[in-house]
């Protein structure tokens, strides 16, 4: 038999001793909460460990919910920030149109750097609306003329 088996065989048969068993039993009994057995409810006379535990559980669940909500909100905001900065929400057509309008109509307002101010953007928008209205009326006019010629 090697040393491992010898030690294990020896340890297997033994249990540590509680030095003062009565004292330990008394301390356990003193720590027990009192039960109202008829209603199966605990009366808070002894150590209310379970109440503290329940309170902790509620607090921790609130923290978990709060943490989850804040994480989701943070991710959403970061996503929104990235999306807005990437400029994907502005279609290429619109962007090209704005650039054209800026050079054609509002070049006097643009700085050397070429960035638009809100006023410039507003003017571009109004210009685009006017152009659209004009083109629709031109089309109507053309249709009418064609109709009359026929």
């Amino acid at each position, binding site marked *: 038999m090697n040393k*491992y088996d*010898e030690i294990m065989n020896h340890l297997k048969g*033994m249990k540590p001793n509680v030095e003062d*068993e009565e004292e330990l*039993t008394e301390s*356990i*009994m003193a720590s*027990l*909460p009192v039960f109202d057995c008829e209603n199966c409810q*605990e009366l808070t006379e002894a150590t209310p460990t379970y109440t503290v535990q329940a309170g902790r559980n509620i607090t921790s669940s609130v923290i978990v919910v709060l943490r989850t909500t804040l994480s989701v909100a943070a991710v959403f905001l970061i996503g929104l920030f990235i999306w807005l900065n990437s400029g994907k929400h502005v279609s290429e057509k619109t962007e090209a149109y704005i650039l054209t309008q800026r050079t054609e109509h509002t070049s006097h307002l643009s700085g050397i750097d070429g960035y638009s101010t809100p006023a410039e953007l507003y003017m571009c928008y109004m210009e685009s609306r006017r152009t659209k209205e004009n083109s629709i009326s031109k089309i109507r006019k053309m249709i009418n003329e064609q109709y009359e010629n026929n």
Partner: protein
Amino acid sequence: MKQISNDILTRCKTGDREAFRILVHTYQRMVFSLSLKMLCDEDDAKDTVQDVFLKVWQNIAGFDSRVSMSTWIYTIASHICLDKLKKKRRMSPLPDDESVFREYAEKADAQTELENRQWVAVVRILAEGLSGKQKLVFTLCQLEGLDSSEVQEITGLDAKQIKSNLYAARQIIRKRLKDMGYE
């Protein structure tokens, strides 16, 4: 394994403190033994005994009489010990532990009872580097002498997992003993 009578159990379920005192008296050494071997600290072990019986008292009304009381108490104790082990810093042997262990190992064949401080030193030397699960399986199987089916019930692990944890624990301990010069 010690068991309490059905009469005591029924009285405990109705909140009879005197009956519960008998239950505590019957099982406190068993719980203390497991706690001391798992936590390697006498004060922590006593606190754990108190926590275990508080939990037993709070849940005894729902205890299923078909299950052995000792297995049920061992299960509660194991969970509490594992929780406490997680919160504890890594346990390393103290400088005196090796000399205590060598002294014990020299006369391990003789039927000498170990004092609690010796138990702590011996387990600290043997179980250094074991994970919580390995330590629990090793303690229950090797030191407490429980059979595999009971350990399965207590830990919730299947036979294969118990075998692998026990094998890993044995390998680590054998290596440690070899490093210390014991073959």
